[in-house]
């Protein structure tokens, strides 16, 4: 076995040093009732070449986005990934390092986390960010728990326009602690602000609003913020980080917590994971922020260095009184974001965000001109995603598109029967005009 270097002779030498006859003697303390008497019933091991060939066969059964033009979003986006990024984040010194518990030999990881925190703050216009959580959904859940702890109130309002899976995760997390979640309904594709005002009682700890929302539409984030704060609740904005190249940041509309999923920042779609969740807060909430945080300090001779800090918030110190149970996070995915934002920089991010906006509007206009297709929410402004209502069976349409090497819009019926006949389309900078035109042509022939 090439991963295990120990030879028979070496094994004997080690056994002699230990003072036992066989490796089996080392397991003598395991009671016989707990011993496995037969080999594990698993496929026999095989060579690297054989295993890789098997994996290639499995991978070939999937329609990949190199071969198919993807118009699906809904939380995972097909953006272009710079070659330099893929190269940098494959560096073994990043990939095979552990959590930086010994800062003197982990300055690369720690400085990159500090830079990540800084970049997230610059993008969101918030004061402080953590080193990442699992995904956008758990970022929402952690933010909701933070809001409940901070306000000592027990209800979280979630806009219907928050990703249905994020809503589901928030609900799963909160109900464990007997905290309540309530959905604020949508009207014409955006939050019903009157319903929000009615629901904003003194029991409400926080309100989560996604912007642009799950249906692609821009929410009235300034008015929502005023209403939320008037009720003494915490304002949680869930945002697409790339959209912040053109859209006003959460800090501008006075959000208390900015969260989101970072897949779009240089991470592959990878069937939905791994990506990472980010969390940034106003200074006043810093001590309640979950997860790891890197900070700058100095060594004995005054040289700058970075460490994990404010660890008394965390599980390994505080145990059952910790801000969260999170330990392992999504460091390498957060590194992808740090490298992505560094490569694109000020101009690149603005260019990508603008192209998503432009191409999505170009596509939406063409698609809405087709018979049987129309905008589901005609009054709303959108960024890179838009919802269409369709007279055809959307699943059947998508089957047809697959034959043309196209992954069509996301059928929203999978989340709620109320959304039957709705499809959510996404157009990023990675789609070309000819791909958009091809989509339109195929749909025209239905």
């Amino acid at each position, binding site marked *: 076995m090439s991963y295990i270097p120990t030879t028979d002779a070496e094994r004997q030498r080690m056994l002699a*040093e*230990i003072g*036992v006859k066989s*490796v089996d*003697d080392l397991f003598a*303390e*395991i009671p016989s009732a*707990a011993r496995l008497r037969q*080999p*594990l019933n698993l496929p*026999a*091991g095989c060579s*690297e070449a054989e*295993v890789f060939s098997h994996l290639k066969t*499995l*991978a070939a059964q999937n329609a*990949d986005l*190199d071969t198919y033009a*993807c118009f699906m979003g809904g*939380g995972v986006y097909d953006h272009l990934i710079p070659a*330099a990024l893929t190269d940098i984040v494959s560096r073994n010194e*990043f*990939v*095979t390092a552990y959590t930086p*518990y010994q800062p003197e030999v*982990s*300055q*690369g990881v720690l400085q*990159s986390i500090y830079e990540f*925190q*800084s970049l997230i703050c610059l993008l969101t216009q918030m004061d402080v960010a953590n080193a990442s959580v699992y995904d956008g*959904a*758990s970022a929402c859940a952690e933010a909701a728990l933070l809001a409940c702890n901070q306000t000592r109130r027990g209800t979280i309002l979630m806009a219907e326009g928050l990703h249905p899976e994020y809503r*589901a*995760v928030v609900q799963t997390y909160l109900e*464990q602690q007997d905290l309540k979640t309530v959905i604020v309904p949508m009207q014409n594709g955006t939050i019903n602000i009157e319903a929000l005002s009615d629901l904003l009682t003194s029991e409400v700890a926080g309100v989560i609003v996604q912007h642009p929302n799950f249906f692609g539409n*821009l929410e009235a984030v300034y008015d929502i913020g005023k209403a939320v704060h008037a009720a003494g609740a915490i304002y949680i904005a869930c945002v697409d980080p790339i959209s912040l190249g053109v859209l006003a940041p959460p800090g*501008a509309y006075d959000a208390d917590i900015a969260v989101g999923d970072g897949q779009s920042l240089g991470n592959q779609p*990878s*069937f939905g*994971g*791994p990506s990472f969740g980010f969390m940034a807060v106003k200074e006043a909430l810093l001590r309640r922020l979950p997860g790891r945080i890197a900070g700058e*300090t100095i060594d*004995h001779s005054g040289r700058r260095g970075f*460490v994990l*800090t404010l660890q008394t918030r965390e*599980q390994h110190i*505080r*145990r059952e009184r910790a801000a969260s*149970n*999170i330990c392992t996070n*999504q460091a*390498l*995915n957060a590194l992808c974001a740090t490298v992505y934002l560094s490569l694109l*920089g*000020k*101009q*690149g991010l603005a260019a990508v965000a603008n192209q998503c906006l*432009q191409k999505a509007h170009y596509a939406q206009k063409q698609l809405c001109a087709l018979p049987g297709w129309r905008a589901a929410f005609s009054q709303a402004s959108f960024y890179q995603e838009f919802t269409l209502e369709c007279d055809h069976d959307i699943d059947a349409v998508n089957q047809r598109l697959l034959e043309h090497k196209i*992954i069509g819009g996301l059928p929203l019926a999978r989340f709620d029967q109320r959304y039957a006949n709705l499809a959510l389309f996404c157009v990023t900078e990675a789609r070309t005009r000819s791909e958009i035109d091809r989509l339109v042509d195929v749909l025209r022939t239905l």
Partner: protein
Amino acid sequence: MITREVPLIFTAGAPGRTGYMPPASDVQEESVDTLIPAAYLRDEAPPLPELSELEVVRHFINLSRLNHAVDVGFYPLGSCTMKYNPKVNEAAAALPGFARIHPYQPEESVQGALAMMWHLGRYLCEISGLHAASLQPAAGAQGELAGLMVIKAYHEAQGAGQQRREVIVPDSAHGTNPASAAMCGYKVITVPSDSQGGMDLEALQAAVGPATAGLMLTNPNTLGLFDANIVEIARIVHEAGGLLYYDGANANAILGISRPGEMGFDVVHFNLHKTFSTPHGGGGPGAGPIVVCKELEPFLPVPVVVKKADDTYALDYDRPQSVGRVRSFYGNFGVLVRAYTYIRRLGPDGLKQVSETAVLHANYLLSKLKPYFDLPYDRVCMHEFVLSGKRQKAKGVRTLDIAKRMLDFGIHAPTVYFPLIVDEALMIEPTETETLETLDAFVEVMTTIAREVEENPEVVKEAPHHTPVGRLDETRAARQPNLRWRPS
């Protein structure tokens, strides 16, 4: 190492530079404010760095050179299982058919991905001796939370949700155990360890009762010792009506040798980034799948990958007793691909050899180091063991100093000051992938440091001397938090 301080990325570059641009847009460009109302637009572009591609590459490559990593040197970090991360796993995960698929594609266009997940779930059932798996949890701690939710849902379905409000954890437990239990709404009851480092049966017997929802246990425990009373422990908890949760952090000791199912556990989580060789990435991503017994299957998070009568695979959402979702989509899929590759590569014989060798290596190091350090529990260990720096502390040198001194020799320090029940703890896990030469070199370093403590303690107390930075002031970092760069 030649490189020392790397300037912050924000202080490098020059206005007007960029390291990457998308291709020029090929659609008719509209004025942005005709598409988006002006109030929603950003006033000023965020002040992101402006560097050329080469500048960015150098910045991060130079940063990477400041890290210790498994591919750089020995990493005996206890409880973290820093084994070699095989490169074929990376190659498999990077295949476009895995890396470049969308989670909402029609199921018939992702059959290979679903088949892989279904089989991985089956393999984890076989390895744990349990019945059904969820691959959704993104890390061990999220697996703990999901597993406890399943236990809670089970008690609620039995009508005992209101009574069973307590989760028992031993005092040697990982911090995530009590933190997860609290997050799941449980009261945490801590039970002491006995003189052998195992669970104190009398204390356990006294702690269980009608309020017990479950017990969380790591076996081998965080001292690296197998709790031989495990079957009795399971009986006590089950008789009280509670369930048993297995923290799989230490599963590298038991593959093909002993299964949580036969030990009496009802729920298990595995850390694929420990036992199943997926890389740690500087702190993540991991994956923390859970496996449960038959009675608990209805409560698993949705969706679950199922195999249909026609041998195709699907995502099953129709599970009315499910706890719900714990993560978006289906988990850290890319990590699952790597773990699947590893299991297929090793097979049953290879996996057993992993645990046998991990345990052999740990006992070899234990035997060699015993004369030089205090050993609070002198027993055969499993895949790791815990020494105490008590003897050195008497000379004025703390475990932290010893850990820092090890860095000077190009070795990552063991886990220190954990478990909490050992004074000045040093928790050492060599793993199965290290050579005898490396183990012997480690012994040499440890004995050298032990000698330095006697003869020249200052060199240890002032360590590290040969790292990119010296010992960092953590108190200052916490008292005067500087957590981000700000534009001047």
